[in-house]
């Protein structure tokens, strides 16, 4: 198992090199002058263009330029993002934890509702519960995410005032930037707990809720479907009949026996959805003014912030490999027949 993990980790640099090099090639489609002009803020400095090109080696061979980027990256310097007005590394450090928090909250909701409703749907096949679940999940799936997000925002923030947009309230902002609040992990929820500050914890949770629910409703339909069909298949198998024949309570038959087997394909889907959430929650982050990494990536792309784009892609590639590895490890935890040897 450890050998398998190490081998998979060895793949990581390869994936990262591939992704970043391809992207770097794309940026070369822009002429050196175009790329130099990105550094020039003031039309009166146009004369300095040649100097900029020479200073950053923008006319060098693509391998040489890529090598330079790689060298800096290995040293931990991802460059300066002019779209975020801070070094790329700092931007990732600031925005990524919030997005991971959001993705985790979402995937937990999706897993919970997906498994629960999918099981219910399978057990009550063709009864009203099944039809209701299928209607509800398909409904959520077909509703555009920006409509759903705005609707939730309107009702729960505008009308009821239960939840709020943004990452946290002003009070929390003051607290967490105060001297007595320690940032252990960068994840506000965890840091708040470590600091023993329940007020901050609940406040962050309150701001996390709506975007997580929006993302969940938008994506749990698939999970319900997979869980339902997988569960239906398992419940027809011989071992389920055995479990009933030996007098186990029906809940144990369904959850302990059928459910555990049925959840295996769900893990695959969940890990794909989780990785997708890490890089692609832009719409929801925008609607709820949530300070996540998705918005950073999109703004960087819109403003041709090359350092930002490269840094963002690097991060997504790393998360992708790690996410898949995690998925493989999860398999072995659920299914003893899978061994991660070769």
């Amino acid at each position: 198992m450890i050998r398998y993990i190490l081998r998979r980790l060895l793949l990581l640099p390869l994936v990262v090199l591939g992704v970043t090099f391809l992207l770097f090639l794309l940026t070369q489609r822009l002429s050196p002058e175009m790329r130099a002009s990105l550094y020039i803020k003031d039309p009166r400095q146009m004369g300095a263009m040649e100097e900029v090109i020479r200073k950053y080696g923008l006319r060098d061979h693509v391998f040489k330029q890529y090598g330079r980027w790689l060298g800096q990256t290995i040293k931990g310097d991802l460059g300066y993002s002019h779209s975020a007005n801070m070094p790329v590394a700092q931007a990732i450090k600031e925005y990524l934890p919030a997005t991971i928090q959001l993705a985790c909250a979402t995937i937990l909701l999706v897993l919970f509702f997906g498994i629960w409703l999918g099981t219910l749907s399978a057990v009550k096949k063709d009864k009203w519960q099944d039809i209701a679940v299928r209607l509800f999940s398909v409904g959520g799936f077909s509703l555009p995410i920006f409509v759903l997000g705005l609707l939730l925002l309107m009702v729960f923030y505008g009308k009821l005032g239960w939840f709020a947009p943004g990452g946290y309230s002003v009070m929390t902002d003051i607290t967490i930037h105060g001297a007595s609040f320690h940032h252990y992990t960068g994840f506000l929820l965890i840091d708040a707990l470590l600091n023993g500050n329940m007020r901050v914890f609940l406040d962050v949770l309150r701001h996390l809720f709506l975007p997580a629910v929006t993302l969940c409703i938008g994506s749990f339909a698939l999970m319900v479907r997979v869980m339902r069909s997988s569960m239906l298949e398992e419940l027809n198998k011989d071992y389920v009949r055995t479990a009933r024949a030996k007098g186990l309570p029906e809940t144990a038959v369904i959850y302990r026996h059928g459910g555990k087997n049925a959840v295996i394909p769900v893990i695959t889907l969940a890990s794909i959805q989780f990785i997708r959430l890490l890089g692609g929650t832009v719409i929801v982050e925008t609607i709820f003014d949530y300070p996540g990494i998705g918005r950073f990536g999109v703004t960087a792309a819109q403003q041709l912030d090359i350092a930002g784009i490269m840094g963002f892609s690097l991060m997504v590639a790393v998360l992708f490999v790690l996410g898949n590895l995690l998925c493989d490890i999860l398999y072995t935890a659920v299914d003893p027949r899978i061994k991660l040897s070769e």
Partner: protein
Amino acid sequence: MDAREEAVLSVENLKVAFDTDLGQAEILRGLSYRLQKGKVLAVVGESGCGKTLHALSILKLLPPGGKISQGRILFKGKDILSLPPEELRQLRGGKISMIFQDPMTSLNPIRTIGKQLTETILAHRKMSKLRAQAKALSLLKQVGIANARERIKQYPFEFSGGQRQRIMIAMALCLHPEILIADEPTTALDVTIQAQILKLIKKLQAKNEMAAIFITHNLAIVADVADEVLVLYGGYCVEKAPVQALFASPLHPYTQGLLGSLVSVNKKQEKLPAIEGYPPVAGQELPGCPFAPRCPRATQQCLAQLPALQENNGHAVRCWHWEKKV
């Protein structure tokens, strides 16, 4: 009435129907028998004659689409079919347990056999997990699993087919049920393993004084284990007799055909003996005797009218012409 009270299980006019594309098909058409304590009943018949469905009916485990359309199944005088869910659950595994045909698929693939055994015990008895585990361990030793202490932590895929069937047996017997139903318990196993498994079931059955129902199409098994034999054909019981009587003087032409088709090593045979023709399609409605189309003695009466099950000295047969010799 006396006889019924003695019987641990009595099946009365059991009819099982299935939903098909062509409407309801009756597979089992009125089966009745009584099973006494400690006795072994063998239910014999070709595939599709309803023998497995009859077994599943006893535990109310019919697959989707199947339903018991008529009849009663009494366990010690109580109708199983109208038991409330909780009592039915306690009956399953606790009082009546079952061994299935295919040990490869009948165990949960991702649960250790130890857990699958102990959960069975804990579902019926109040005891600590540790005691249940100890009991599971001794059961595994009883059914002949070597190294039980290590193997109890293993998963079904780490066992051979014969070992898995032993585990199924341990699971079925762990609560000392009063009735064991074995649905072709050796069909999926090698011939050499078959004998071992049969011997094991027979030994444990005798030791625990259980009643048992053996479902099989293998007459050699019947001769080995049964006290009484019930022959099913086309959803009807066509003959029922004590095992010696049946083998010595089978009355129904179908039974005679079955016994005639046993191959003997000592006799030289040109061609394997077989009953001509095919069994009726499940659910097909025939007005007369279901065996009539294949029967050498069939007359117009046989095709038109279903004979009743007539009993003489404990030997019952459903045939118009049972007294004739072929």
